[in-house]
Each structure stands twice: as structure tokens, then as C-alpha cells.
């Protein structure tokens, strides 16, 4: 459901910056069902990649072979991502707070002596800063949706309205957080993430229980349309192709 919801949200966008895992699934699903012209950009340098199966890694050979252009890694970041050319960037995280700030660095202990050391930032800080919009995809649980991050790896809305502008960040920030339970969007005034939609079969209290802070809920919470036959068929094809 997360991949399908994110794929639908890609309709109407020109380009998206793709990481591996769920974002890649969503972007490839979108290109097949919702937005055939969508330009997929991988940080490994593939611009306009058209993979036939889901890559396991962002450097999978097929990405380069099917791309409109392959450029160096410095060029991806400097000429393509940094100037704000890319519409949508996908991010995930081990921790997320109420303003959509993300932690992929460590959990527990201290930076110098972490309990769990995570992979680190990769391209996430720049994706968070420079894509016109950011979609976050995270499974929802109180361990992940926390009141305070152990480390700010990538900035969402910082401490709230106006903070991105003050930092000189030019993209709009995390306009949509897609979880396994529903969709959160920033409040237009405060930028605090607000539950606006639940997936079929999920109730609002389920979402509140899976959130480590007192989650705001929109006055009227919608329900995500169930997956269509086509979405499910294509999604199954993508996932099976990647495991063969």
C-alpha cells in the first residue's frame, strides 16, 4: 500500500530522485501505471533510467544501460540535484519527528558511542534540502515516529514554519509522509505533520498508537482508495522480477 500510495502521488510530476527499496518500487510502479513520462534519477548517475525489473542496489547495471544519460556522481549532485531541478525526492529513516526531520545516523547512546550505528546520510541531506518536494516513506511505530531525534541527518521543517527559509533550503520539504497506516501532511500554518488519510482497514486510533508523539489529526480524515487490479498486477511483476 505504501508503494502504491507513493506511486499515485507521482502523477503530474516530471522527475524524481530515487533511492533503493520502497522508493524505487514506487517510482517504477508510477512509471508503468500513473506517469509513463516520469524521469527517474538515481544518485549513482543514471538520469532517465528505465529499468525493467527492480534494482537491488542504486548502482545496478540496468540503470546505466537504460538511462538517457549517465553522469558522474559529482555531476548528479551539483548539476542536477543541488539547483532544484528535480521535482520529487524519496526518503526513509530510522527516526522521524513531528516536523519531518529524519535520522539515519544512529539510535541510542551518543554519536561517539552509539547503541545502534546506522549507515549514515548518503545523499539524504541534499535530497531533503533541494528536491522541490520530498516524499517520506516509513513504516509507522512509536520507535520510529519519535518525539525527539537522536540525530538530525536530514532536515524536514526544522523547528516549524519559516525554519527552512531561514536555513536557506530551497525545496518545499516533506510535503507527504506515506506510512503503512496512512498519509501525513504538514499543517499549512505550523508545518507540523498531520494525519490526513488512513489506508483501507486502518482506524485513526491505530495511527495514534503507532506514533511517539501526540499526533495531530486533520478535521476530516480521508481513506486511501484501494489498490486497483492494474496496480497490484504491475507491483507483483516488479517485485517478482527483482527476485529472479
Amino acid at each position: 500500500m505504501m508503494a502504491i500510495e507513493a506511486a499515485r502521488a507521482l502523477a503530474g510530476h516530471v522527475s524524481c530522485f530515487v533511492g533503493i527499496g520502497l522508493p524505487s518500487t514506487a517510482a517504477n510502479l508510477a512509471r508503468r501505471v500513473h506517469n509513463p513520462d516520469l524521469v527517474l534519477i538515481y544518485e549513482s548517475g543514471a538520469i532517465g533510467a528505465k529499468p525493467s525489473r527492480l534494482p537491488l542496489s542504486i548502482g545496478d547495471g540496468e540503470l546505466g544501460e537504460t538511462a538517457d544519460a549517465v553522469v558522474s556522481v559529482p555531476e548528479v549532485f551539483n548539476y542536477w540535484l543541488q539547483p532544484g531541478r528535480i521535482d520529487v525526492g524519496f526518503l526513509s529513516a530510522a527516526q522521524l519527528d513531528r516536523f519531518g526531520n529524519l535520522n539515519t545516523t544512529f539510535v541510542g547512546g551518543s554519536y561517539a558511542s552509539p547503541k545502534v550505528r546506522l549507515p549514515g546520510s548518503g545523499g539524504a541531506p541534499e535530497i531533503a534540502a533541494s528536491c522541490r518536494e520530498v516524499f517520506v516513506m516509513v513504516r509507522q511505530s512509536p520507535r520510529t515516529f519519535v518525539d525527539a531525534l537522536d540525530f538530525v541527518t536530514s532536515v524536514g521543517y526544522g523547528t516549524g514554519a519559516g525554519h527552512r527559509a531561514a536555513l536557506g533550503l530551497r525545496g518545499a520539504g516533506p510535503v507527504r509522509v506515506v506510512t503503512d497506516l496512512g498519509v501525513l501532511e504538514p499543517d499549512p500554518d505550523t508545518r507540523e505533520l498531520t494525519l490526513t488519510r488512513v489506508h483501507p482497514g486502518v482506524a485513526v486510533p491505530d495511527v495514534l498508537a503507532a506514533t511517539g508523539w501526540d499526533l495531530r489529526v486533520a478535521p476530516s480524515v480521508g481513506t486511501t482508495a484501494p489498490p486497483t487490479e492494474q496496480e497490484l498486477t504491475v507491483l507483483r511483476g516488479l517485485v517478482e522480477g527483482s527476485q529472479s
Partner: protein
Amino acid sequence: MRTERALAELVGLADGVAELVRDGDTVALEGFTHLIPARAGLEIIRQRRRDLTLVRMTPDLVYDQLIGAGCARKLVFAWGGNPGVGSLHRLRDAVENGWPAPLELEEHSHAGMANRYVAGASGLPFAVLRGYQGTDLAGHTDTIRTVTCPFTGEELAAVAALRPDVTVIHAQRADRRGNVQLWGLVGVQKEAVLAASRSLVTVEEVVDELEPRPGAVVLPSWVVTAVAEVPGGARPSYAQDYYERDNDAYRAWDAVSRSRERFTEWLESVRERERGSVRRLD
């Protein structure tokens, strides 16, 4: 072997590592998922290098192995994981528990690392980028500062140039004069070689002539220190038009690296191999 002013020498892998990678060096084994110089990494382990500062945008299995083997005292990086699989358990064990030795971290973002190589390749002491604002990274990393635009007054991130003592990369081909050709996803390898004092390039094959190829990057012989023919030298990563990524090997490493015991067995098996016949990981 000589520095960049002369042509590259063709060497055996063991000799190349012995002469170019020295204890205490800052070493970059670059490769952005594609063309990772994995075999050269094993040779560094076999030769028991110590106190290395390992530099790489995306440390993966090869750095997990080097760290677990105790070759490194410091890691300069942006993303350290087993792509598509999960954690690097040897890296985590070093950072979380100091095993086999503590590991100092110098942590950047991808854009920061890429621009640090660009600055190194360009003979500049630093690079400017939009990055790090609002994150906790700058507070933990000395090589991130700020610079003010002299035209607009805007404050931007500055990162210190990277200048490895030696960069090791893998490429598809070299000719007999030592000109190197790589294609497909070319990552940051050109910058990493040009930023370094010395360089060692392992290649799938040495050919008489480098026929031009779409998307190919050529590193002229006079900026490369040594070239070693090492077929399969990027396994379990891939070399476009030679072999595919061995995704099973990446998954299998997870189990090997999870336990110190299994890793130690693996390490002993690597060290037992004869010079020049380091086995592939599997």
C-alpha cells in the same frame, strides 16, 4: 614506481599493493556500487596493512572486511551499509564496541564527499556546496565549515579537499601503455584518482588498443601510477559488459559478518591464500 609525471607501470596486484599502499596511508578504494575494487581490498588485508584512513563515499563489503581485519584506524565516508541488504556488521562492531579496534569516523553527505574529491582533483583547498544546513553533521565533522558568498552575502557550506595518499579503483580495460578506460556508472573514480598522490587501477583486461565506447571515461596513463590486470577484480560487484552483480554474495556476507567467529574464519581463509591468488568472496 613513479608519480604521475611518467607513464603508468603494468604490475601484478600483490606488487602494486605492496609498493603503493603503505601503513598509515589515507586510502580511497572508490566505486559507486559498480566497479568496486574488491580484489584489491582483499590483497590489502592479505598484506596486513595497518593504521589506514579509509576513504569512500559508500563503504560496503570491502570496507567491512578491511575494518574487521583491523587494517583501519579511521573511516571517511557518507553511507556505510550493505546496499539492498542491511548493516555492515563489522563496521558497526568497530563503532559500537571497538572490535577489533576503535574506528574514528569523519562523516559527510554524498554531495559533501563528491565535492571534496572534486576540490582535490582541482587543486583547490576546499569546495562550496548547498548542504548540511540544519543537520547535526557539521557539529561532529571538522572538515565541514561555512563560507560567505562575496557577491550575495549568502552563507554556504565549505568542505575540505580530499587528497588520498593512494586511490585504488577497478576499470574494465587498460592498454599496454597504461591508459585506463571505464564505462557504465563511472561514479567518482576519475576525481578520486586525480585527487590522489598515487593510484593503482585494477582492470578486467589489458588490450592492445582502447576502442572508444559510449559513456567511457579515459584516464591517461600519465595520471595513473600503476595498472594491474585482475579479471573479476570487482566481484561481487559488477563490471558492465563483463559480469553482473552477485546479489547472493551481498546477502551471504550478512551472515558471515554478523558473528566475529564466522568473520574470523573468513579472514583466516583469506590470509591463507597464496600471494596473488586471493579467492573470490563466496
